[in-house]
């Protein structure tokens, strides 16, 4: 402050002037402060409004993102975005397919390593094409190897997008593992059905052939049998006749094998000790094939199976012969048995308490998958012409099926073959019954026999045999004619020998009608077919016996004796 100013403030006027100036100055400062305060408040207010609006937008954005994230994360389909060869986004479902957290999948430098090697290249190419904007055919099914070592089938479809300004692919993944497995199961079932239908058709065909063939053989065998009966062993034709008889027998066995392939129920099912049968068959087989080593591991205490022992023998022989043929330079035939308490392969509804598993394995030449596909087909053989009929394994298949069992084959070329058969065990116990009934003596018979067959040759030959046995024979070429003859000679007829399959009135109807007329009538049923169907029930229910065509004089005699014995 200058001296002049100090002087002015000392005077009363000066003091008034200074006070007025101070008031003006205060008002001036106050006005400035008020104005700047307003400006400050308004700027702040504006700023807070902007911030609030920005916050609100952020909030809305966050909520929107949350909504989209929620949708994406809860999709049942896997969703992933791939950029170059890296995954840049994966939802939980996509990561879950692999059993990995999404972040681990995203940080994976080579996500394609999770793809099955056989599908990897195709998937890479699809990804590259899609990223390049080229068309890609959707969907594509590939296999994924999960973190826990399992395999999933995924169906992928997608589109090309831009992700952070770079070309990428957006991929949708659906787990189709169950669908693929179901399709595989369906395919397998369809194949099984086709196989079964094929077998059925072939079986029907084979059954028809067997029937006609057996009828043809029946008369031939009958005459040979009669001729042998009339001949001394020293007769020059005796041995040729025996040879003819054997050849007819072999022909008959061939038809039997065909018939077994029909998967008819075995006739003589009894509780069978599979180990015992194996030992017997191995003993015989081992003597014929000394060039191969036989190793048998038979579990003790094996349960019995309800089976036709002769058919089980047939199964074993066929498998052993096949194994031996697969070991041209020698090798090992391994036979194993064991008890299975609950085989995974048991079909739903199976009621067996346990199963017997029989394994026949060789370390021989093995088979290709193509051959394995067909080995159970009838007449399919890999053996040179004349060495195999192509019915061995088809018969085995039929017998095993006929016993309610299962058969599997595992083979690789050069590594051998293993057949695994599982047969349901039976709760029944007891010793196995003998294969064949003891031969009966042939007492001299008298009386009248009515023989009914649509084959005149069979009537003729069978009549000769029955006459040889001492009977007086009446013949009828069909059911209607037989019924008429029977009605006329009801009381005289001691025995009716009837064929099952005939045109017109069949054997079954005739059987019933005869029983109605005279219930105690003795009836012997014969057939070129196997013994099956409702007739078997009738025979069990009433009294009756069955004789498979063709038959020898001796077999006929035994059957007749059995009928008479039963009555």
């Amino acid at each position, binding site marked *: 402050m200058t001296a002049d100013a100090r002087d002015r403030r000392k005077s009363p006027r000066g003091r008034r002037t200074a006070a007025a100036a101070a008031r003006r100055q205060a008002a001036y400062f*106050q006005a400035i*402060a*008020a104005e*700047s*305060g*307003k400006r*400050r*408040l*308004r700027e*702040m*207010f504006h*700023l*807070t*409004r902007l*911030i*609030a609006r920005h*916050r609100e937008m952020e909030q809305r954005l966050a909520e929107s993102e949350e909504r989209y994230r929620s949708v994406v994360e809860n999709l049942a389909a896997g969703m992933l975005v791939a950029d170059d060869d890296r995954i840049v986004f994966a939802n939980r479902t996509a990561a879950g397919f692999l059993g990995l957290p999404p972040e681990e999948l995203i940080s994976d430098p080579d996500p394609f390593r999770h793809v099955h090697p056989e599908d990897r290249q195709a998937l890479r190419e699809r990804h590259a094409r899609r990223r390049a904007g080229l068309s890609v055919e959707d969907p594509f099914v590939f296999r994924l190897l999960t973190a826990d070592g399992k395999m999933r089938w995924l169906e992928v479809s997608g589109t090309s997008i831009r992700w952070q300004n770079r070309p990428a692919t957006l991929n949708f993944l659906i787990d189709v593992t169950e669908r693929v497995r179901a399709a595989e199961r369906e395919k397998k079932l369809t194949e099984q059905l086709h196989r079964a239908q094929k077998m059925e058709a072939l079986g029907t065909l084979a059954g028809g052939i067997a029937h006609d063939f057996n009828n043809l053989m029946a008369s031939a065998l009958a005459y040979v049998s009669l001729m042998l009966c009339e001949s001394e062993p020293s007769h020059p034709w005796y041995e040729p006749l025996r040879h003819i008889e054997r050849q007819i027998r072999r022909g008959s066995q061939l038809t039997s094998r065909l018939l077994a392939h029909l998967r008819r129920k075995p006739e003589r099912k009894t509780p069978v000790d599979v180990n015992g049968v194996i030992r017997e068959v191995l003993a015989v087989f081992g003597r014929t094939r000394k060039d191969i080593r036989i190793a048998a591991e038979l579990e003790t205490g094996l349960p019995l199976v309800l089976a036709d022992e002769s058919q089980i023998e047939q199964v074993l022989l066929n498998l052993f012969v096949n194994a031996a043929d697969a070991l041209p330079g020698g090798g090992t035939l391994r036979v194993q048995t064991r008890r299975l308490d609950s085989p995974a392969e048991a079909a739903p509804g199976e009621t067996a308490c346990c199963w017997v598993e029989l394994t026949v394995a060789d370390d021989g030449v093995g088979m290709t998958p193509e051959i394995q596909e067909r080995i159970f087909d009838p007449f399919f053989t890999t053996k040179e012409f004349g060495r195999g009929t192509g019915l061995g394994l088809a018969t085995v298949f039929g017998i095993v099926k006929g016993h309610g069992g299962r058969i599997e084959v595992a083979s690789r070329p050069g590594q051998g073959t293993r057949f695994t058969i599982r047969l349901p065990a039976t709760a029944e116990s007891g010793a196995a019954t003998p294969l064949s009934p003891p031969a009966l003596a042939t007492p001299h018979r008298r009386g009248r026999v009515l023989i009914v067959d649509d084959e005149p040759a069979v009537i003729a030959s069978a009549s000769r045999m029955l006459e040889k046995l001492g009977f007086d024979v009446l013949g009828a070429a069909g059911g209607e004619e037989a019924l008429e003859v029977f009605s006329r000679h009801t009381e005289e007829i001691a025995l009716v020998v009837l064929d099952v399959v005939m045109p017109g009135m069949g054997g079954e109807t005739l059987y019933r009608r005869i029983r109605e007329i005279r219930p105690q009538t003795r009836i012997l049923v014969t057939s070129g077919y196997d013994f099956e169907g409702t007739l078997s029930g009738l025979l069990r229910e009433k009294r009756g016996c069955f004789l498979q065509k063709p038959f020898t004089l001796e077999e006929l005699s035994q059957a007749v004796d059995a009928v008479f014995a039963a009555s």
Partner: protein
Amino acid sequence: MKVGVGYANVQKAHEGGREAAHRALQAGGIERPDLVFAFIGGAVPPADFLAGLRAEIGATVPVVGGSAIGVITPGEICYAGHPCGVLALEADGPFFRIAAAEGLAADETAVGERLIGDLAPGPEDGALLVFYDSVRRPPAAAEAPPELNVSARLIAGITAAARCPLPLFGAGLLADFGFGPTVQFRGIGVATQSAVGVLFSRRFSARHRIMHGCSPLDGVFHRVTRASGNLLYEIDGRSVVEAIDELYGNRDWRKGRPIDLLTIGRYQGEPYSGTEEDLYVNRLITGVLPDGRGIALFEPDIAEGDEIVFMIRDPGMMTASARSQSLALMEEMRAAGERPVFGLYIDCAGRTAFYSQTAVEEAAEVQQVLRRHGVPFLGFYSGVEIAPCGGGSRGLDWTGVLLVFGERSSDDR
């Protein structure tokens, strides 16, 4: 003393109580706590929370606290969802007494008197903590301000009945920004329209700092020419509402509940003796009256003839104050040779980043400082903060009160 802090934020209150308590006990290595402080968000059903809490701490341990707009712990600052904060204390020997009194809606002063009567403080006692129900009656309509219990009357009742001066701290509890009903944990049970007090023994020192965040808008003083209770109608002979309209330059501010940015300040020092924040007491403007004739304040302690200044909330100052005051408190304790044992941070809900439109939480500054010094603490967002200020304890608005209990370091004993 063993101290543990736990936090949970789950929809099921029982689970939240259990989880927060379990974590507190685990963090403090506490088997049987002597005292538990608990604060819960308005969306948390208190009975279920307490049941869950008691499943962990037992049925007889006193629990003090209640509703809060949000919870602050060393690891969390949250005022969304279902926040629950628990601080458990276990000490050798007694160190506190608890009392509670109901009837705030009828007479806040009488409640204060009864509370202090039950506590009967003596020379051996230290700080008194009081938590009370801020909301006498929630807003009757969307545009109406709420009716609040008055901290000044409660404090008057307490201080008048206390036979010796007590440093009084505490909070008026709020459950949400809409001034909905609140609850108080009063030792064993739950109450409303009540105050609960915890009187600590002198065994622990209690040091505090008040975090501000408002500065004078323009430094212009206004004389209150018409006021009644907590309602202010005129300043300088004109409508206070019109005066604020002029300040904002619009009427949008009237939508605020409470009002954004602007508070009413009362100067506590000698006239024009300085501009330090401690010289002002802020009063929150809870809203404009529906008829537009006046404004409602959080406290009814401004009368005709008083001089006021308009204060403006300053986010930068708020954050800086929280940091500097926290650091100063720690330094003060260090200088006094005291080891911080545990802290309570009573923070005005208006200071949240959500409400203040700030980028950062000012409570994070406190959190950071206390964490760095290894001080376990529990904080919560309140309506009114109570702390000694300007010669006596009073209710404060728009502040944060950091209270840290300490004990003499063993080196100094």
